[in-house]
């Protein structure tokens, strides 16, 4: 299996807070390889979420670069990168509330251009994360937090993209569910994807058996 490499180079990022420019990322350098699960840990405000947002192409790179197998996001285009290279799982799930679990996954399959047999594929993906058919056909707002996060993971798997990032994916879940969700991410990593989880919990990092990278004051150690 070939190794894909996600490389972050000299990433600088600033945002304005009440007219004052705050440097969030101060020159982050990191390399992430496929087949591994990474846990970026750090305190609140250390820049973890900003880094993961840039990796997920949810924000524009101000300075520095992020490349995948040598191709820059700038070159690929943020939208294209989101569509074909990366998927993100949020702490608050960010599912479309008026859709069922299956429909949420189907939407992602459509965007990924996998609309043939999307219904069965969606059921299949949901089953892989522990959501049965009956649950799949319920509106997501009627599912538990753990189930919703599983749906979000299934949706992230729909595009079969090489990078999956997750921002505090177990922040709203109980300990038992947390372990099951982390196991799912581990499975994805084992399947050859680059999985990057942002968490402030060392326990999460330890349980996931992940490569831990510490973020502190805008720099990644």
């Amino acid at each position, binding site marked *: 299996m070939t190794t894909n490499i996600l490389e972050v180079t000299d990433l600088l990022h600033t945002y304005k807070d009440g007219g004052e420019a705050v440097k969030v990322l101060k020159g982050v350098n990191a390399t992430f390889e496929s087949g591994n699960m990474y846990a970026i840990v750090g305190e609140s405000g250390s820049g973890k979420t900003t880094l993961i*947002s840039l990796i*997920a192409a*949810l*924000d*524009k790179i101000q300075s520095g670069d992020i490349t995948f197998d040598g191709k820059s996001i700038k070159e690929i285009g*943020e*939208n*294209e990168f*989101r*569509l*074909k290279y990366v*998927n*993100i799982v*949020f702490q608050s799930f*960010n*599912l*479309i*509330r*008026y*859709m069922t679990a299956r*429909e949420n996954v*189907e*939407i*992602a399959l*459509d*965007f*990924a251009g996998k*609309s043939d047999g999307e219904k069965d594929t969606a059921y299949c993906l949901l089953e892989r994360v522990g959501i049965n058919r009956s649950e799949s056909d319920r*509106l997501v707002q009627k599912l538990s937090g753990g189930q919703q996060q599983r749906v979000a993971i299934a*949706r992230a798997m729909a*595009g079969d993209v090489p990078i999956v990032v997750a921002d505090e994916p177990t922040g709203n879940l109980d300990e038992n569910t947390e372990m099951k969700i982390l196991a799912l991410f581990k499975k994805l990593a084992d399947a050859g994807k680059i999985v990057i989880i942002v968490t402030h919990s060392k326990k999460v990092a330890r349980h996931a058996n992940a490569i831990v990278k510490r973020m502190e004051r805008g720099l990644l150690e």
Partner: protein
Amino acid sequence: MFKNMIKRAWLSISRKPSRTVILALIMFVMANAVLAGITIRSASSASVEYAKSSLGGTVYLQADITQLRENMQQREESGEIDRGARVGFTRPGVTADVANDIADSDYVKDYTYGIESSANADGFELVENDETKMRAEFEQMRGQGNFGPNGGAGGGSETDSDSAESDSAEATQSFSFGGDTAINGINSYAFIDGVKNGTMTIADGEYFDETTDDSVMISEDLRILNSLKVGDTIKLKKSDDSGTVSLKIIGVYDTTDDNSLSNTLYMNVATAAKFLSTESYNDGKYNVDNVQYFLTNAEYADTFIDEAKAKHPELAENNLTLSTDTSAYEQMVGPIESVGSFATTILLIVIIASILIIALMVTINIKDRRYEMGVLLSLGAKKLNIIGQVLVELVFVATLAFVLSIGTSSFLAQAVGSTLLDTQIANSTQQSEQNFGRPGTAPGGGGPDGGVTSGGGFGGGMQSFTAGNSNSNAEAIDSIDISASPADYAILFALGYGVLIIALILPTINIIRFEPKTILTGKE
């Protein structure tokens, strides 16, 4: 991607029924108001157009009384005539040739003119009516020496004593009955007032036309009194005693009016001209009265007048003027034009209100869905695809609302339109009462001549055929037929979708211009 967009739109519509119903309800109400406005406007516009073409507009060629008065005033000021002296002015005449030449225009649908004169019956009796009684009384008073010997030929005289300004004694002194029989020459039987308003019909024979010289139509009363029949000949002495004219009866008319017309004889202009003074008749350039041009459309009046003035620049020099009578048109379409104008105002207000309300609703809707948009963007959706989804949702709901409004708006429009029209007619009637002291009376009443007929006599002038009167008696359009046409629906749909797009673009762009992270963190 497109299928995905439609699918998301449908799910959004069907899974949020309360939002969809509220949106559809608001659009339905708006669509009804807009469609009602459009249809009322179209209907009133159509009614006005119909009125324009049916009334056609009438242009009168007549003496320029204002100019004549001014001329008189100037003559007084220059000392040419004594100030305060009651001097009549010579009314300028219009020859048949000029009248015909002006009528030769694309704007003229039809035209009429005539000659009013009088003659004395020779060998037949007249039907007794108010006029004959008055004549008898007058003759009796004159026999008793109450009047001077001023009697003279009445009808047919071309001197206007400006009777409106004369005092009664002076008017009576100069009064003359002329002949005892009214001669009414007109270029077409169809333009006789009684024929136009349906009170006169042919009882026997046929009607005259321009080819039936020396022929006459008499009344049924006159025929019965004298045991006459179609084909008989009657004789008339000219009122200046210059000769006798024989006329063949070609038709008998009956009228539902009182017997005031019983002694009136109708004939073509050439025949009537024989009863003018010998001098006027012999030179062949006799004048005609009541020259009226009926236009194909009232809108052409100004153009037609300009055309006629260019063709005959001497009209102004001869103190003749071409003028329009818009009173009938205004009376007829005034209320409905007000309704149309009101509908336009309402329509504009509704459109502006629709834009604001729908924009507000869409803005609230879009703000509510910013996370959804952020999620879709994070999944790789293109911005246009997201705008498209919201647009499809709105268009679907709007189409439903618009289609439903097609069924209901006509009732609303009919009710509103009729109420507005009734109000306008009531206002118009009230105004008319205030102005004229009696309801339903047309302003002006007397047509362009103001009731002044040539000559001071009761003879031929008594039975004038003032077609202008019939127009000014036109009643206001008192009903409005509101039915939406496909064009009205097209306007509604185009307007509605236009409003939706305008209402959608700004709030949507305001959100999706941000990066997904900004939207998802709610920091936009």
